[in-house]
């Protein structure tokens, strides 16, 4: 038995090893730059390691922790608003007979499909007119416009994958429409919805152009710093910022998975 197991681990190990190299190779680069003080040709590895760039990221005036808190707050609010809008919309698009269904789905896709660069001036103008500039609420709205496409499209797919008969069975047993949705449909669609929550969260956490035009200077998020540093080739600052941003991303993922496993998956079987 054990001999057979070992033999099977050879292709498995090679496959996982290659995958790990592909995934972690570039990430090792990120880690090295985060602690590199000096690194140039012909040296394969950094010449000098240190944390002086960490001190500069965390300098009190840089306000990295404040920006991080703002970034996370905005991302969480964006997820809440997006899912709040997407669950009814996705349900309607998947289940109800809607005129112009395709057109509606297409309209929701546009904020991602039209490269935003020339549009931001106009967006900023509208936000200035409504006095939304420089508010967290304004930034959340901008992120929601971009996050909705993920949320609605995925919710639609999740709801349409569910067998209609399950819901009808619940209703034939006397449950109200809302009750049937809440007890039967929503739990089954939950894995898809939560996956979309992760994407919306990450999308919001990585966004900088919209935040600059609508939020700055009153609302500053960490990706603004990341963008300036990375596109200027300041690899150390950019790598450190990216590592800091990993923390909330992974924490959010963890929370979602925990929730998925204990709560939802148990209901799916019933």
């Amino acid at each position, binding site marked *: 038995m054990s001999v057979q197991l070992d033999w099977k681990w050879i292709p498995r190990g090679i496959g996982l090893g290659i*995958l790990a190299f592909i995934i972690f190779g570039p990430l090792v680069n990120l880690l090295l730059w985060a602690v590199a003080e000096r690194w140039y040709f012909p040296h394969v590895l950094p010449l000098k390691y240190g944390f002086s760039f960490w001190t500069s990221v965390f300098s009190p005036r840089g306000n990295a922790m404040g920006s991080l808190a703002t970034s996370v707050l905005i991302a969480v609010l964006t997820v809440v608003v997006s899912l709040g809008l997407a669950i009814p919309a996705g349900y309607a698009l998947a289940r109800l007979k809607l005129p112009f269904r395709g057109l509606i789905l297409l309209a929701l896709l546009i904020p991602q499909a039209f490269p935003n660069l020339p549009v931001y001036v106009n967006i900023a103008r509208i936000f200035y007119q409504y006095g939304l500039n420089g508010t967290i609420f304004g930034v959340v709205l901008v992120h929601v416009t971009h996050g909705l496409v993920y949320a609605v499209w995925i919710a639609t797919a999740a709801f349409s994958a569910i067998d209609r008969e399950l819901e009808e069975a619940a209703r034939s047993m006397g449950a109200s429409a809302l009750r049937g949705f809440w007890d039967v449909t929503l739990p089954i669609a939950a894995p898809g919805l939560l996956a979309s929550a992760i994407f919306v969260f990450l999308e919001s956490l990585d966004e900088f152009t919209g935040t600059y035009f609508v939020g700055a200077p009153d609302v500053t998020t960490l990706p603004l710093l990341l963008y300036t540093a990375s596109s200027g080739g300041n690899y150390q600052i950019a790598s450190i910022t990216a590592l800091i941003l990993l923390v909330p991303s992974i924490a959010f993922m963890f929370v979602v998975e925990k929730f998925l496993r204990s709560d939802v998956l148990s209901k799916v079987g019933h």
Partner: protein
Amino acid sequence: MPIPLIGFLLVAPALAIVLLLFIVPLISSITGAFDVGGTFGFGNFIKSFELYSSDMVFTLVIVLLSSALIGLFSIMIGGYLTLGSNPTAVSILRWVYRWPLFIPFIVVGQVLRTFLAKNGLMNNIFIEAGIMTPMAAMSFLDWRGIVTAFVWKQTPFVTLLLAGAMASIDRSTIEAARNLGAKRIRILIEIVLPQVRQTLLVGLILSFVTMMSVLSVPLMINAQSPTMITANMAFRINAHGDYGVANALGLISLLMTSVAAIIYLRQTMREHAR
């Protein structure tokens, strides 16, 4: 209340946000694309095609190729996560594949630029390990770099969706097929994939759209000719202040993605009508 009206009310808030906050501002971009010195005309489109037609083809090829690879890899990973027989290998894979998801595009551009370069970390590792000679080292910072960046970043996205969908399908048919001695690859293609096809397509369309509008990856990996449409849009705006051509290019990019989306929608429409 008639059903279409209820449906519309449920969709309305989401639609209103996108309409007011994006499509209204977009309108002046769209009219700007047809504005040539104050009058209506196609000058911006003519110029776009004159200067950037090869970049449009390049963009489409890159994004289609990336989407195909993303689809393939996510089916492989998702398939193993669902049908894999060894729990240890499955949990290692589940832990490994996701990491790129958390790396913002701009950082993906940065790390791959220093990883895939001629004297970058990847070639250096190969040389140190004795797999490759220094003479054989070459740079991947061209179309291959862009495709690598897209596939690296987007495969976990599609896989996450796909694995979720695969996990929620009925296990009994899979077990039945397995008991009849069917190979796993056959189960994947004939039983699992048809049931998650729609999720896969949604994931791929969303990836397609995202890749079409990413600016930092082409800028940081290869901003030379040919390059992607977004890099040209940035160039028209930043170097020329030329919103006309930039908007025309944006519109062309929008049309490309719309075609992909419409093909998908028509198909689901047919299923929806059943």
